């Protein structure tokens, strides 16, 4: 009896929600605020793109869902609300999404950044390290001290990829360039971000990059101290045009829309989708006035080479921090090791854990 009553209640609740739209329902789970000017806003921009370009689709979202068991509940609520596709947009959602994928085989899960699959769970990510390699060239050209700084939230593979790519890019034009890493230990602590930038500048760093949720505090601090900056997640050039070199930003819309269309058409397959510069999912941000014409041309040429498959960021020789040869000349770091990046290349000052 009580079960019957409960399911009736559920049906009522969902009926109201579902009757509003006839098309497929897509849910988005965000780890932070959807308008953070950074990671989450980039994902949400993708959601809005899907909403605009795929006819009849309806989207909903949950913000500020931490990377713990709470995300299971959040996604189950969405499934209860009729969502057929769920974009689990944060890296730490992976184990919970995998668990739920087993429980709800009729729902399609898309996890951002993970390297594990399930029959109804695919992953999507973009090789931002390509844009970071190009930004590293700009940084290597721009630095007068030869020292680049990087403000990182946590030592996780994606962030280690970015740091290594910047170092390799910078060293390709400035062999002595180094990248000094400072972790804030938090995705979202603006005061720590600023303190980190100040610390780096006091060490003689004159170009800084970042990978925290919102790049704005780092950009503002760079502006105050008058150093150059490489952006991330979002095109934030307007915050500091004079010091802006370039950077990388996400363009998730097309990938997401393609996923939604293929699920609707029944052609979706579980696979890792790697967007990149070529596919347009990771983009090189516009150049700031501080980048001269010669450097711009060099970077654009290299961008073309990457897109054409002639240049691989992880091509050897690559040496680790301690001088150990990681990739011999002629070789390329295997995809699996890129995804699970756990070392720093030579010239990076910092810890990997």
């Amino acid at each position: 009896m009580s079960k019957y009553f409960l399911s009736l209640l559920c049906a009522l609740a969902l009926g109201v929600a579902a009757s509003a739209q006839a098309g497929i329902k897509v849910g988005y789970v965000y780890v932070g605020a959807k308008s953070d000017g950074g990671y989450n806003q980039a994902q949400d921009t993708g959601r809005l793109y899907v909403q605009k370009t795929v006819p009849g689709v309806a989207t909903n979202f949950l913000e500020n869902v931490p990377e713990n068991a709470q995300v299971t509940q959040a996604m189950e609520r969405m499934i209860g609300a009729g969502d057929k596709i769920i974009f689990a947009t944060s890296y730490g959602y992976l184990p919970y999404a995998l668990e739920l994928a087993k429980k709800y085989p009729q729902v399609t899960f898309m996890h951002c950044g993970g390297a594990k699959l399930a029959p109804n769970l695919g992953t999507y990510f973009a090789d931002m390290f390509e844009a970071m390699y190009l930004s590293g060239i700009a940084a290597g050209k721009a630095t007068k001290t030869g020292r680049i700084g990087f403000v990182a939230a946590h030592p996780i593979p994606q962030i280690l990829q970015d740091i290594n790519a910047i170092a390799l890019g910078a060293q390709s034009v400035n062999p002595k360039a180094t990248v000094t890493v400072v972790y804030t230990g938090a995705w979202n602590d603006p005061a720590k971000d600023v303190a980190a930038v100040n610390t780096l500048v006091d060490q003689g760093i004159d170009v800084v990059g970042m990978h925290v949720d919102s790049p704005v505090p780092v950009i503002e601090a760079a502006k105050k101290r008058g150093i150059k900056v490489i952006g991330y997640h979002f095109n934030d050039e307007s915050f500091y045009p004079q010091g802006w070199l370039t950077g990388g930003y996400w363009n998730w819309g097309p990938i997401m829309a393609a996923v939604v269309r293929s699920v609707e058409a029944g052609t979706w397959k579980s696979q890792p989708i790697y967007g990149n510069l070529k596919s347009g999912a990771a983009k090189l941000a516009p150049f700031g006035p501080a980048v001269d014409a010669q450097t711009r041309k060099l970077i654009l040429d290299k961008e073309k080479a990457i897109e054409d498959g002639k240049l691989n960021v992880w091509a050897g020789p690559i040496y680790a921090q301690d001088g150990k040869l990681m990739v011999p000349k002629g070789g390329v770091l295997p995809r699996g090791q890129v995804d699970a990046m756990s070392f720093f290349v030579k010239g990076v000052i910092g810890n990997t854990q």
Partner: protein
Amino acid sequence: MKNSPILTLLADRLMVPLLGTTVFIALAAAFFHFNGYPPGKIFVQILKGAFGDAFSITTTLGKTLPILLCALATALPARMGLISVGAEGQLYFGALAGTAAVLAHPEASAWLMLPAMLALALLGGALWGAIPGVLRAALGVNETIVTILLNYLAIKLVEYAVYGPWKDPSNLGWPATMAFPGTAQFPAIACDGVASNWALPFAVVLALALFVLVEKSRLGSALALLRSNPRVARLAGIRYAPHCIAVMALAGMLAGLAGIVQAANVQNHLQPDLSSGYGYVGFLVAWLAGQSFLRIIPLALVMGGLLSAADALQLFAQLPYANTLVLQALLFISVLGVGAARSKWRRA
């Protein structure tokens, strides 16, 4: 009517909760209305999101457990006048210690694993609680500041472990220990689609046991005396130091239990975001309940329901997630205000 003492007592007991709830609903309705959301619909949504179906009840119970234990861990020291804000840190450190047992012998049988994990978790929680207790008893250092600092410390230590030596390589860089084996989980209970585990009824029993221990035994009067008049207590032969240390350690155990349940049954790993601030919500519940172990139980359930409904409110009513924080505060203000106003009015 006026001759019926039972009715008067009942009216007396129910007045504050009822009036408090009314004021809360009025304040919350005003808040929703002012921000352009229909209050009636939202209230129905909250009830549905908290208790509307088996899934919601499961979620609510899952949040009730840590809140309940952390509230108990706040209320017990408060009984002897210690203001501990430390449940959050004790939760983390308990989980850290309990996880050490799991990682040491992941292949151990359930009969060995569960007791060992539980014992270490309780010990860890007790240690994290006893530090401020010892400092207070031996040096007179204020326990409030020590517990606040220890919270941050415990969280950093867990982060150190899961980003560093305890990170499972097969996670591909995701900061967490290996998944706990099934032998390291508290047995599940399920009923009509509602799922929980045995730690929940155990926690309720703990609350009742604390009630009996503190309200119905001499320990309670000893604690009350230590709180109201330490000098008289000393004359009566009740020593401050052992009580202070024991009470803080016991409180730490309660929160440590919440921590290991969170790691073993809820997350299934030790990882950075273990708690979602349950220690602080528990602190709020304890003070809302006036440090009564019995009143903590329903209030923890209410708070668990409110947190559980937060997702539903975002999804179905498009309310920003922060509304839950506002609701918690409004509930708190209403019940506290009505309670205090009533006792003031009665005195006058």
